[in-house]
């Protein structure tokens, strides 16, 4: 009896203010989609960080005959001796986890594989453009400076690249995107909250006869407010469901595009997307219900 009564009142409220309900749902959906997008990017960045923290390395490029850096001009191509010495020294450093020697031809093969779908890039390069190098795995990626200082400028060493720095640029781009999405979504969420307040106010006004009688015959506050709260929660839920659609779309189109673009092969799993959707939908329902509750306290005297 109770449940049936409350639900039918909720349904009547949603239908009676159809235009406002649609406005609420739209606003909630857009703001949650942006919020979810921000979260999604955040998840992506975190996942990439974790991935690259394990793999990120310093690359120590050795001199070849064609190297242009001053050290290489001075000493010429790296000799076998220099290579062995540097290999040993790197391995002896406490910050270093492992050292891999990559010959020029291995590096070339790796390059071809990696950029297999960018023919122009592959054609423009040739074997030997990437000199033989050491991939140095660090125990702690933040300690790259010590290792760099130890080998930089030694005879036979062309240059030392820290992959982390390249990644950081990419991450900061994504971070910027994330914050832009989050800031816009918060503004939108605030607008959504105000809109819900107004909708519930209208709803309370159009049902003032019923609520007045309920009050008089001694219905509890909770019972009087429940249909309104549910009305807001349902609007939030529908908005959240629509936003979920956007989030899934963003996962497939936006993030996949970014990954294609930057040649990173980490994809957000179903779990991460579900997490983002869950958080967004909960936020939508919570926001709507709280906004409705605060409005009712002002406009539905009990």
């Amino acid at each position, binding site marked *: *009896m*109770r449940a049936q*009564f409350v639900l039918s009142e909720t349904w009547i409220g949603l239908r009676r203010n159809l235009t406002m309900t649609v406005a609420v749902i739209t606003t909630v959906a857009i703001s949650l989609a942006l919020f979810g997008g921000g979260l999604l990017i955040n998840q992506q960045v975190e996942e990439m960080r974790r991935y690259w923290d394990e793999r990120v390395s310093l690359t120590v490029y050795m001199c070849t005959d064609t190297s242009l850096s001053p050290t290489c001009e001075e000493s010429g191509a790296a000799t076998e001796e220099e290579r062995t010495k540097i290999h040993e020294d790197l391995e002896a450093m406490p910050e270093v986890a492992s050292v891999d020697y990559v010959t020029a031809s291995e590096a070339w093969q790796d390059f071809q594989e990696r950029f297999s779908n960018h023919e122009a890039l592959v054609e423009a390069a040739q074997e030997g453009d990437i000199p033989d190098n050491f991939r140095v795995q660090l125990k702690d990626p933040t300690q790259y400076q010590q290792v760099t200082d130890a080998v930089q400028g030694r005879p036979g060493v062309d240059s030392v690249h820290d992959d982390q720095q390249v990644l950081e640029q990419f991450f900061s781009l994504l971070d910027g995107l994330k914050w832009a999405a989050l800031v816009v979504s918060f503004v939108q969420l605030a607008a959504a909250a105000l809109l819900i307040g107004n909708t519930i106010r209208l709803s309370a006004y159009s049902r003032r*006869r*019923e609520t*007045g*009688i*309920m*009050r*008089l*015959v*001694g*219905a*509890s*506050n909770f*019972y*009087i407010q429940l249909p309104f709260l549910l009305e807001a929660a349902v609007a939030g839920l529908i908005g959240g469901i629509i936003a979920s659609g956007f989030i899934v779309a963003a996962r497939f189109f936006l993030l996949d595009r970014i990954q294609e673009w930057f040649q990173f092969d980490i994809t957000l799993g179903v779990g991460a997307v579900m997490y983002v959707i869950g958080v967004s939908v909960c936020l939508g329902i919570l926001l709507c219900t709280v906004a409705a509750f605060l409005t009712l306290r002002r406009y539905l005297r*009990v």
Partner: protein
Amino acid sequence: MIHFDNVTKVYQTQKHPALDSVSIDVDKGEFVFLVGPSGSGKSTFLRLVLKEEKPNKGRVHVAGKDLARLSNWKVPHLRRRIGCVFQDFRLLPNKNVFENVAFALEVIGKPRRFIRKVVPEVVDLVGLEGKSDRMPDELSGGEQQRVAIARAFVNRPQILLADEPTGNIDPATSIGIMKVLDRINRTGTTVVMATHDAAIVDSMRKRVIELEEGVVIRDQTRGVYGQAY
């Protein structure tokens, strides 16, 4: 049943008190007329009983409860013991007679079986046999007020407050309404009725409390509306 002890109520926007040190005792099962010109404090009295307003001074006891000590979340339970009838009926236009009366029980969570049993009884009691399916706009003013009384009484309240229940109804029909209220009073329910209707007050010969500018100027056990009128 209702006990006012030196109650003063001043509305914020007004200088003069709506009720000024009023002390009134209404016992269980009494029938009381509250008379006086508009603005004399009748409605304020009723609102204080319902705890829709709080007194500035003095104490109000209703059904053995000190309203000042009654926390807000318990107010609904107080109101379940009080039925209310108004001049403008306050029926729900999109519900029929049965549904209007049943609404009062639905919203306090009574089971459906119980509602189906008691609502027809009360509809009969107020003299609307066979009209359960009518919509409010198909009923006369007197019949609509009977529905409102049925709704106020269906939960068997200890107190029935009526604020000018015959104000919108012609004198002949009013007599029927009064008979219904009298019948309800005979079941042991305390009835407090604010009214301007001299003929009704005179014919009933019940207790009359007269208010003027927030002060009780007369309290007679078997009174009439007033010598001056």
